[in-house]
Every structure is written in C-alpha cells, then in structure tokens.
C-alpha cells in the first residue's frame, strides 16, 4: 500500500509558509546577495570608464575596481553564510515536521503499509530536498539577482540597447516551458530507476553468500544489467530533452550579444551613443548569459524538490482511522460479534463470534492463512471490522482514543524492532520507570543479554531475533495493559525457552486477559481455552481437554504433535 502524495496547491502553500517563517534572516540574505551582486556589477562599469577615456585617472579607477572586488568578496561571504544558516534552519524544520507527521500516522496504516514507502520518503526525498535547498536555492537566488541588476544596469547605461535582449525573451520562454512540461516526469523516472539499480545492487552485495550458495551469480549479473538498461533508457530520454533545449538556450545568450554590438555600433556610427555606452552595454549583455543559464537549468531541480516535498507532506494526508466518541468502556470485557474482514474484496473472516472472559488465556490455533492474525489485529483494535463489532466494555474499539486503547490492549507480533539506542531507552519508550523496575521486567522475560546502558540495535550490540522478542515482551510487562494479544510472540525462541518465558510472563500477567496466537501447541495446552480458527471461522472452542476428547481437528493436531 502506498501513502498519499500532497497536491500541488498544498505544496505551494507549505513552501510559502516555510519561506516566510523567518522574514528577518530571509530579508538579510536577499539584501546581502543583492549588495554583493551590485558591487560586482560596478567592475565592468568602471572598466568602461577606462575604455571611454583611457587617459583619465587610471590609478584611481583601478583602485576603485580593486575596492569593489574586495567588497563583493566580503559581501558574498556574508551572503552565503547567511543563506546557509537560513537554509539549514528551513531544512531542519522540514525533516522534523516530516518525522513528527510520520509519528502520527494512523495505527492501521502503519501496520498495513509496510515500511518501504515511508523509508524511501524519509531518506531519498529528504536527501533530494537537502540538495535542492543547499545548492539550487542559493545559486538561483544569486543568479536571479544578477540577471535583474544587470538588466537594470543595462537599461540605465543605454535604454535602446535593451531591445536585442528583449527580442529573445519569447524564444527562451517558449523553449523553457516546452522543456519543463516534460522534465519532471522524466527526472522522476530517472531517479526511481537509478534508485532501483542501486537497491538491487546492494541486495546482491549484502546477499553475496546466498548468491554464491545457490549459484545465482549469472542471474544477479543479468538482473544488474537489466536494471542498468532500464536506467539507461530513462537517462536517454532526459538527455534527449536537454539536447533539444540547451542549444536554444545557448543561442539565446549569443544572439543578444551580437545584436547589441551591431545595434550599439551603428547607433555610435550615427552619433546616437557613446563608445563607453556601447562597450558597457555589450559587456553587460555578455555577462547575462551565465547567470541566466544557471537560473533556467536549476528550474528542473525545483520541480524535483517540489515532487519530494509533495511526498513528504502527503504523509499528513492519511485520514484518521478512529474517531473517538468519548464513550468509556464499562468494564474489561472484550468481545467480537459477527465479525467480517476483507482484504481486497475477499472476506478472510466470515462472521466470527468470540467472548473473552476477563483474566483468561485463550490460545488461537489453526493453519496459516486461516485468519488468525487478522482476528488478532481486530481484537487489539488496530483495524475495525468490515461488518460486525469488536467491543471493549460495550464500546467499539475504534471509538476509543489511541492512548486509551493502548493502555488497555497491546499487540505483540513476531515482527520486532530494536531501536538503535540503549537497552534502557528501548524499554522506557513505554513509560519512564526506575532501573529496578526495568530490571524486574527483564527478569520476567529471562533476559541474559547486555546491560541497560549498552547500545543495541543495528550498529550497536546486535541482538539475536530471540533477544529482540524478549525486549518486546519486557516492554509489554512495563506497559501492563489488561488485555494482551500475542501473535506468535515467542516463535523465535527455542521451544524450551519459549515455554519458560510464557510461564514467567503468565505469573506477572496474572489476572490479565491474554489472546495467544501460536503454532506451538504447548501454548494451547497451557491456556484456559483454545479456539481453532479454520478458513475464517472459529470451528472449535473449549479447553484443551475438551477439544482433545472431542476428537476434531485439534485432537488430530495434538496427536501429531506429541507422537
């Protein structure tokens, strides 16, 4: 499932707010760039004075040129430092707001969407925007100011000599519009294909052992070649666009220089302009070329930046998955009535009824794909059912605010995550607790791993899958909800350890309601009741002994298990 992407208008509104958030620093940055450009532009003007009257105070003019060069350098230094400070501030806001938005994503979206899309947004799109803000924005700013001032200087020097420049504006305008209309899609494809190329390449390199074990060297080499071919096709497309656009641009810079020279030259010959005017104007027009090309060629980076921004902002567009009504559960009774749930129009639960007795442990067993995990998610209030109701004390779970819900019901699955931080922080994320309490929680899960101050997770002390599972369960002990849904929560531990852990958990969680989805039947054996889920229905429900005595599918399974 893909997360939404923000609309153009939203992106524009956000960018505007972002730019205007720091009016002081923004004004200072623009002013410094403007002053730096202005002092740079006095150089050709002063030079033109020398050309017009070579005998006149050469030393003084040269000294003035040197002074303006120094001034321009100093102002440029200040301008770039100011724009870096401002840019970094804006970037920090952007990424912090993105992470804050991601941290507020609806629970059901997080559980279902997978992390790939969000991961790509948090790394690739943030990177792209950083590049745009760090390189493109200051350059465009400098270029725009230069173009503007050069134009003004030109107009002040010799107004009629603006004509050759204005003549090429329509040409520039039309060709740029033609290019930009096609560029965005082309560059997005190009970026995506190149990212795919590098992703596949990284898989080959990190999975080298598997490649060699299965003798897939040739297949992986071919996969790399195919990804290269795809990337190459996309690169050729955008290259083709540039090949048509760039020559028009280049000629748009060259033609006005020639035009100004000729026009100015003949005006001089007719006595309508001075030599200084013609020289200065021609130099100005020549100087327009470079900043103008920077300005135009960076426009597509703005488009790309806007596309990235749209993906970052889109995260906030996921509609909320629950609408708290303010109703308070009357007790801790969890029950499901006539519950149906569908993935892509196909029902996976066909009317499940289940009443949990407060304090009991209910084991849910059944074949893969029978709907056990789906049922677990509904019972934990992650998703709402398509039809029917899942209620806690008569209140539908999706009517409860998230905070209330998760203090009462917790879900632990076999997908664990250990954060790259100390073991302590991996636990206190549930709630702040003194070390003794943290150690007690670790004792419950039979912890024999690193200490609380040790940094764990990728890059730190690597925990085994079994230890990660123990951390997840220790978190649960700290959270202390009255109802727990454990979906294969101990499947990665070796059978002996899993059983010991479940027992000590059981001691701590005495009085708590537990739904344990498990494939190891000792869990069912130890539970108060067992529910067998087959093909989206609860087909058997009772104590272990009752079900074994009944001789149904549970009894079959049990005999296989223990033979």
């Amino acid at each position, binding site marked *: 499932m893909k997360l939404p992407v923000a609309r153009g208008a939203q992106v524009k509104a956000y960018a505007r707010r972002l730019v205007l958030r720091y009016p002081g620093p923004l004004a200072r940055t623009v002013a410094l760039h403007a002053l730096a450009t202005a002092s740079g532009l006095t150089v050709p003007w002063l030079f033109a004075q020398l050309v017009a009257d070579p005998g006149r105070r050469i030393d003084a003019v040269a000294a003035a040129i040197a002074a303006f060069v120094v001034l321009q350098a100093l102002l*440029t230094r200040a301008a770039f430092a100011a724009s870096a400070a401002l840019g970094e501030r804006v970037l*920090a806001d952007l990424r912090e707001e993105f992470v804050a938005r991601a941290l507020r994503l609806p629970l059901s979206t997080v559980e279902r969407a997978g992390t790939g899309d969000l991961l790509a947004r948090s790394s690739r799109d943030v990177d792209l925007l950083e590049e745009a803000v760090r390189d493109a924005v200051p350059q465009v700013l400098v270029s725009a100011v230069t173009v503007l001032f050069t134009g003004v200087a030109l107009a002040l020097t010799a107004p009629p000599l603006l004509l050759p420049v204005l003549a090429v504006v329509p040409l520039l305008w039309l060709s740029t519009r033609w290019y930009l209309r096609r560029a965005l899609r082309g560059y997005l494809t190009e970026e995506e294909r190149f990212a795919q190329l590098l*992703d596949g390449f990284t898989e080959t390199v990190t999975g080298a052992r598997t490649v060699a074990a299965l003798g897939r060297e040739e297949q992986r080499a071919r996969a790399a070649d195919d990804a290269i071919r795809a990337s190459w096709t996309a690169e050729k497309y955008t290259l083709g666009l540039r090949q048509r656009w760039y020559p028009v641009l280049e000629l748009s810079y060259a033609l006005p220089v020639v035009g100004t020279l000729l026009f100015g030259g003949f005006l001089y010959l007719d006595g309508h302009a001075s030599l200084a005017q013609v020289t200065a104007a021609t130099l100005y027009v020549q100087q327009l070329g470079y900043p103008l090309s920077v300005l135009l060629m960076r426009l597509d980076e703005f488009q790309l930046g806007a596309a990235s921004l749209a993906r970052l902002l889109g995260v906030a567009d996921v509609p909320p998955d629950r609408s708290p009504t303010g109703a308070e559960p009357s007790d801790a009774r969890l029950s499901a009535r006539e519950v149906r749930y569908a993935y892509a129009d196909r029902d996976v639960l066909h009317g499940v009824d289940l009443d949990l007795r407060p304090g009991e442990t209910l084991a849910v067993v059944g074949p893969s794909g029978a709907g056990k995990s789906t049922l677990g998610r509904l019972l934990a209030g992650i998703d709402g059912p398509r039809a029917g109701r899942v209620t806690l004390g008569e209140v539908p779970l999706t009517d409860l605010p998230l905070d209330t819900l998760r203090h009462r019901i917790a879900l632990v699955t076999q997908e664990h995550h250990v954060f790259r931080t100390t073991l302590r922080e991996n636990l206190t994320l549930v709630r702040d607790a003194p070390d003794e309490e943290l150690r007690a929680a670790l004792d419950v899960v039979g912890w024999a791993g690193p200490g609380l101050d040790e940094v764990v997770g990728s890059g730190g002390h690597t925990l085994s899958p079994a230890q990660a599972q123990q951390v997840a369960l220790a978190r649960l002990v700290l959270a202390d909800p009255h109802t727990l849904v454990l979906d294969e929560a101990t499947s990665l531990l070796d059978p002996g350890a899993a059983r010991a852990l479940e027992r000590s958990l059981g001691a701590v969680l005495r009085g708590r309601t537990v739904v344990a989805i498990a494939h190891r039947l000792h869990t069912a054996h130890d539970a108060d009741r067992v529910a067998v889920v087959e093909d989206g229905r609860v087909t058997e429900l009772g104590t272990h002994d009752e079900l074994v005595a009944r001789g149904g599918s549970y009894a079959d399974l049990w005999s296989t298990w223990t033979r």
Partner: protein
Amino acid sequence: MRELPIDDPGEPPEGGPWRFLAWMAARHAPALAAVTVWSLCGMVAQALMPAALGRAIDEGVTAREGGELLRWAAVLLGLGVLLAVARLLEHRASVAAWLGVAYRTVQLVARQAGRLGDTLARRISAGEVLAVGTNDVTRIGDLSEVAGRAVGSALSIVVVTVVLLGIDVRLGLVLLVGVPLVLALSGPLLAPIHRRQSERRDLTGTMTATASDIVAGLRVLRGIGGEELFERRFRAESQRVRGAGTRAGRAESWLNAAALLFPGLLLTLVTWMGARYAASGQITVGQLVTCYGYAAFLVTPLWVLGEAASALTKGHVAARRVSHVLGMTPDHPGAGTLPPTGGELADEGSGLRVRPGVLTAVVAGPEAGPLADRITGYTDDGGVCYGGVPLPELAGLRRRVLLTTNEDTLFTGPLAAELLPGDDAARRAAAVRAACAEDVVAEAGGLDRGRVAEAGREFSGGQRQRLRLARALAAEPEVLVLVEPTSAVDAHTEARIAGRLAAHRAGRTTVVFTSSPLVLAEADHVVHVRGGKVVAEGGHTELLAEAPDYRAAVTRGRE
C-alpha cells in the same frame, strides 16, 4: 553514443585505486577524450569572444568601419554557435562517461560479489558494503565526469595565457604567475571545508539512521508508545546537523568569496596595467577590452579545477574501496578438482555421519548454526569429507552441497525466477508444494506474474521461511542442509511440510537441523549433538524411549 550496458565489464587490474581508475579511464577513453576536446573547444570559444568583441570595437566602432563591424559581429556569432555545439557535445559525452563508469562499477562489483560469496561479508563491514552501493558508484561517476572538463579547463588557461603573451608579454607573464598563485592561495581553504563537510556528513548519517530506525520501528512506537521520546531524539540530532550544516556553509562561503576575490584581483591588475599601456599607446583600446575579457574568463576554468580537486579526493576514497573489493579472492575458491567417491558426508570433529539418500534430522540446539556451517564448508577447520574427499579439495562443492538458513537473502524480482531460474515450471511448482508455500505464492500474484518486492519484507517471517525452503528444494542439490526450516510456521503447516519434505527429497541426501517433533518423526535417522559431539543416534521413537537427554530436548506437549 554506445548503448549501455556493455556485455562484459572486463577484468580490472589489481594494485590499488590509481590503477583501477586508470584502467577505468582507458575503458572509457573515447567519451573522456570527447569531454576534454569539447570542453576545451567551448572554453576557447568563450575566451575568444572578448577578443572578437575587442576587434569589433577597435576596427568597427572606433574606426567607424561598418563593414568591419559586421565582419567581427559575424565572427562573434560564429563563436556563439561553436560554443553551443561544443557545450552540447560535451554534455552528451560527459553523460556517457558518468553513466558508463558508474554502470561498469556496478557490473564489476555485482559479479565479484557472486564470486566472493560469504567471503565478502567476512572481509569488510556491512556499513562499507552499503557504502559501495550508496556512495561509491556515484562518486566514481562524478570523478570521471569532472576529469575531462578539468583537462579541458587547464588547456584553455594555457591557450589564453599564450594569446595574452602575444598581445603583450608583460600581461601574459602576469597570468603565468598569477594563475598558479590563485590556485595555491585557494588550496588551503579546501582542507577546513572538507573537514566541515565530513562532520556534516557523519552527523547526517547518524540522523538518517535514526529516521530509518523510527520508520522501521513505527509499529512498535504507534502500538505501545514512545513517539515523544523518539521525536525529541530526532529533533536533537536534526539540530546537531543544522549546526554542522551552518558551519560547513560558513566554511564554503569563504571559498565562494575566494573564488571571486583572487581572480578579481588578478583581473584588476591586468586591467590596470592594460589601461596604462593603452594610455601610453602600447596597446589599443580593443586590445585592452580583450585583455579584460580574458582575465574575466579565467574565473570559469579556475572554478572547474577547484571542483575537480574535491571530486578527486572523494573519488579516490571510493575507488580505494571498490578496488579493494575487486581485488579480494574467495577464502574457499571452490577450486577443488576431486570428484566424490560415494555420498557420505562425514565430520570427524563431531562424529556426525550423514548417510547418503536419506533424511537425517540433527537436534543440536544452539549449536545448529555453527555445525551446519562446518559440515557445508563455510568454516575451514578441516576434518569434513564428502564421498571421502575433504571439502576444500572437492570439485564443485557449492553445486553439490546447499546450506539454507533463516538468514538467507530473498531477492527483489519476479517470484518464479527467484525460486528457480529457467523454465522448468513443473520442478518449481513441485518445490512450492513441498514447502507448503502455495498460499504465499498465490498472495504474491502467482508463479506467472508474482513478484518479490523489497527483498521479501512484505511477507511475514513464516512466509519468507517457506519461500526460502521452496527455493532450496527447487535447486535439487545432491546434499541439502536446512537449519530450522519450520521455526516460524504453525503446527498444521509444519506437519504438512515435514511430510512433503521427506517425500520430495526421497532418495536424496538431506540434513535438517530442527527441534520439532513433527519433523523429527518424519526423519529416517535422528542424531543428537551436544557439546560438539554426537551423543545419541537412531530413530525418533527409539531415542524418545531410550535417551532421556534427547527426550528433554525435543518433548513439547507433556511435562
């Protein structure tokens, strides 16, 4: 332009990053030469424009010669067209060079990774392996792109200096001394910039890792709490990056200033001298304009040279890592030549003997992983023979003996090819059935159209496990060694897999490290290993009855 990718990336020489880069440059010589030539043409055209302008003003405007003015305007236009053409061709060639070099690097390293197999992960850290994919490929591409332009720029500086020497020796000499001086003066600024940039890069790396960590653990955070804690953490790291970024920006701003100041002062000097010579009639006004134009032009090639210096530093680091990977040789070259003379896999150290043609289950608890690595030749302590031949001397070890663990990578791509390359659909379908992965395959879109997305992250642990099993079964190796192949599936499925696995591998040698009674019950022979030694072997039922240690290790249901 040559179509990419090329079929064979070739064999790079050993001997470090410079040799690698030189070899790479030689492979892409046409594109690199084209970049050099066209960038030189473009720069010279650009440099000659002021000269043409000067002549136009001298011989056309000042001399009041309309014809001359037209002639020099035409020259100017011609230069403009030449510049446009040169820039276009340079751009084409530099795209070809960048992509050609980057693609070839990918091809070389991807092929080498396959050759190295498990050796790669043992020799360099996971972070460095990742850096090859995320950084090095683009850095080497960047270097190749800028190299051609740098040569063109250096040549254009030479051309301009020579032309200026022709106008006036003294002005030429000023450039001859001034340009190296400018480069020398700007050089010392680069070190602090690189230091600041690397500080920013390191902090950004940490911050990106935190962001990925938050995203990867989002279900935990949303499910059980801790959003505020991690938001605060991220903000703190983001603000550190902001600080480092601001400092890096400040360091870079000095370079921006220097890039204007030094060439600007050189320009002032040339202008001042030129103006004096013009005043005393030693050169014409037009020549003065020309000198000014040349000196002003120099900013561009000097800038390119600065850029090249920094691309070279980064590209060299990247090339060092890539050439290091390319220079590695596998620990187990698989160069054995002896064919096996039987089918028994025997480990002297533990006393484990795997009989040919039957399903052997090994109960080894936490020792399973290391023992499996050992008997399949991934660790070389010696003492393991297949068909009487020690594993290092065995011909085609990896083709004969396949080890499958739960850490094996699933690769993104079409599902069918991932399970078994080629078009033996029946063999593939049989393996899927034996691994009870029909539902996984159906969910992914079937064998015809299904895909593995994001390296299988969209599948659950149990689903990934069954796909790995199906893939191993489809390979049909002489000896298949499986480590805990059913640890993440439910009992019903586990029972079915155990039965189908035994049937599918009937008559072939199979070793399963497991503690599941469902699997053990299907095995022809069961071995119990403890403390690195075989402590009991026989049938499952037999061992249950006779070996109390074994019973304790595998019994699940009853006390």
